[in-house]
């Protein structure tokens, strides 16, 4: 599936915002073929191979805010 390959390829480039290490993708939910966002990783986790920090993907958006800012936002209810 071309769209899927393109999207996974895009995700494969992004790096840890803290140490810039490579991220490993674990996809829990991928948009099915035929959907407008076919191949998009809807839910999953990106884990930094270097510093072990984990970054969530929710609603198709990888959250790569530095962890302290992400946690502050979660605390603020965003």
């Amino acid at each position, binding site marked *: 599936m071309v769209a899927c390959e393109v999207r996974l390829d895009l995700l494969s*480039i*992004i790096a840890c*915002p803290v140490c810039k290490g490579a991220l490993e993708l674990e996809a829990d939910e991928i948009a099915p073929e035929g959907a*407008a966002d076919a191949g998009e990783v809807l839910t999953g986790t990106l884990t930094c191979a270097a510093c072990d920090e984990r970054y969530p993907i929710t609603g198709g958006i990888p*959250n*790569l*805010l530095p962890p302290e800012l992400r946690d502050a936002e979660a605390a603020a209810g*965003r």
Partner: protein
Amino acid sequence: MTTTPNNTERTSTDQIRQAVQEHYGQRALRVIELADVTPESGQDCGAENCGRGSCGSDDCAPNAEAAACCGPADTERAMTLYNEAQLQGLPVEAMAASAGCGNPTALADLRPGETVLDLGSGGGIDCFIAAEQVGASGRVFGLDMTPEMLALAIANRDRMGVTNVEFIEGHLEDIPLPDASVDVVISNCVICLSPDKDAVFREAYRVLTPGGRLHVSDMLALTEAGPALTDAESWASCVGGAEYRGTYLARMTAAGFTDIDTIDEALRLDENDVPLNVASVKVSAHKPA
């Protein structure tokens, strides 16, 4: 008189970040609401505090806050900033959410196969234009810190069927991309929102490939006195964070950029047409090969 490094002396970094996020989150939500309404002439668009100048109704008089966030006015502005060919095929929501002050892709001379990063991608308008130019062999990353804007951008992307754009939630000061991974960095009226512009330029330089280029449109102050207003809400509307152009360009030089060039200045006025000592400026620069 001493110039404050980042206009931040009177407004804390957290206050600025929060004001910016709220301002643009509300803008995105308003566009999402507007998408369900046909903005017919003479009719309130339905958004709370609608400030449509063209609305015509007495109780819908334009006010500064609403006019700054309301979709149709932004759509009209987008149509003056971009040319017709660039806007063809774009969802109206992408134009309505557009908060830019320029058109960086027009100057970036993007080529097929290039990788582009848009700092502060908002509703995605510049990403979609860039995606068309770099083609299927190229790719575009849109980085933004406002969840509502990212949701809007993704909805726009999927409606268009674009597959070479990825939107990422993140900070301009901590770009989640490896060193030397991007050919062109673009940004449209966003770096002025950052309380740490040195970090933004340092990060932009880091992710660019040698020979890579930076094309930004941004709000800059014309004299060392800085912008007329610097409270948090003025930061969010691109005035408070607009620093003196000399300081801004010096930060770019300090980050390593060369061949720094500025063109085209459009003066920013307040609602009474009083100049705010701030102008929209297009800046281009290179990372040495």
